[in-house]
């Protein structure tokens, strides 16, 4: 269905419910939808499951969402960073659940959700603690681990430009998880630096086609 161009990030958070699974794009700060996360904090949804590569940095953005006690569970590849003190404290206090997933498996499980793949066998992690309890199968002489999709109720992603249909392009390594998460959630919200007219993006260079995008909002801090 047609994209909604929202006036501000708060409008873009309409209807996000307590208990939702929220996919949050970004790798470090590149592609991190900071203004959407701030709006999600104001919106107030709680008991969230967050799926994101990291578990927040410093005291802002995802870390602030965690600090407010809104996140029950986080699924990520690399929670522990030099400035992940908010997550570290909550985890040590037993106030947040953690599922650690190898980064490529995280990306592929999100892709599977978006691509209608019921499950897939990956060699990543076979024989390691992260495969414990998972079904395995020998394929072509190699042990593979059965992995299931990760589907979001909402995805919050950062992109570079959107057109008024919702087509998205990204910039450099800020692309990272955005295009995959955009396929994997029921409601996809993109924060962009610029909204351009339909026809202004090169159809050969569109990375996320409009079909995946439900709401776009221009970042207030955009240059």
């Amino acid at each position, binding site marked *: 269905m047609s994209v909604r161009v929202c006036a501000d990030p708060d409008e873009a958070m309409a209807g996000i419910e307590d208990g939702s699974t929220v996919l949050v794009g970004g790798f470090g700060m590149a592609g991190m939808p900071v203004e959407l996360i701030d709006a999600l904090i104001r919106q107030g949804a709680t008991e969230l499951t967050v799926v994101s590569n990291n578990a927040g940095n410093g005291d802002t953005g995802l870390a602030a969402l965690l600090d407010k006690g809104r996140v029950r569970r986080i699924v990520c590849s690399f929670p522990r960073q030099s400035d992940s003190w908010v997550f570290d404290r909550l985890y040590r206090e037993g106030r947040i659940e953690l599922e650690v997933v190898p980064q490529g498996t995280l990306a592929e499980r999100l892709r599977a*959700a978006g691509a209608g793949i019921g499950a897939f066998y990956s060699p990543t992690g076979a024989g390691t603690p992260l495969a414990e309890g998972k079904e395995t199968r020998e394929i072509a002489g190699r042990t593979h681990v059965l992995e299931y999709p990760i589907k979001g109720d909402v995805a919050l992603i950062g992109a570079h430009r959107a057109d008024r249909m919702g087509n998205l392009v990204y910039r450099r390594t800020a692309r990272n998880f955005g295009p995959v998460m955009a396929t994997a959630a029921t409601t996809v919200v993109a924060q962009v630096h610029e909204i351009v007219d339909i026809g202004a993006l090169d*159809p050969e260079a569109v990375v996320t086609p*409009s079909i995946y995008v439900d709401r776009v909002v221009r970042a207030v801090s955009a240059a």
Partner: protein
Amino acid sequence: MNPTPPPHPVVEHLDRGPLTKHEMAARVARDIPHGSYVNLGIGQPTLVADHLPDGAGVVLHTENGMLNMGPAAQEGEIDPDLTNAGKIPVTELPGAAYFHHADSFAMMRGGHLDICVLGAFQVSAAGDLANWHTGAPDAIPAVGGAMDLAIGAKRVFVMMSLFTRDGAPKLVPECTYPLTGLRCVDRVYTDFATFQVGSGGATVLETFGISFADLAERLDGPLSRR
């Protein structure tokens, strides 16, 4: 709990004959909401595009890797690098996007298309679809994207004549032709009637040039009326 509202009666259009192909296409087009993302199968379903009003905001997908496909290319516009799934030269609308085959079918299989319109040899009352193979022992099997389209879209519409040239119904209690997909069809648009199919069986929504009673007589198996 509120009581269930009384069902709308089936609408019987008895002042006219069955729908023509173009009328069927227009009938399907009427049920496509504004802003939908739609894949129109090869053959008759392609006609639906001609009946979408300007400003319907419908975005057409073609499984060979494009969104916002435009109408068939006219002379002078033909580009061999730009075709639809039937290999017919087409055009590009503003806001189009291209992607490769795995991404295109991920979009389909992942349930992102709002509606897919397909032709059919047979549809069962439960919504099973047979549209890829007649089952003839000497036929060369060729499935293309039919199975992916059948299971992928949020809603699958079938558009077909209700009877074969020999008069046999194509809406059937159980498909006898090899299946394309199980329990995947939502609506069946035919020349004589529009049906809802699925777990509740076949329900007639409206008829054209035939009464519900006569229709029920010409089809096998139970038939509800809305």
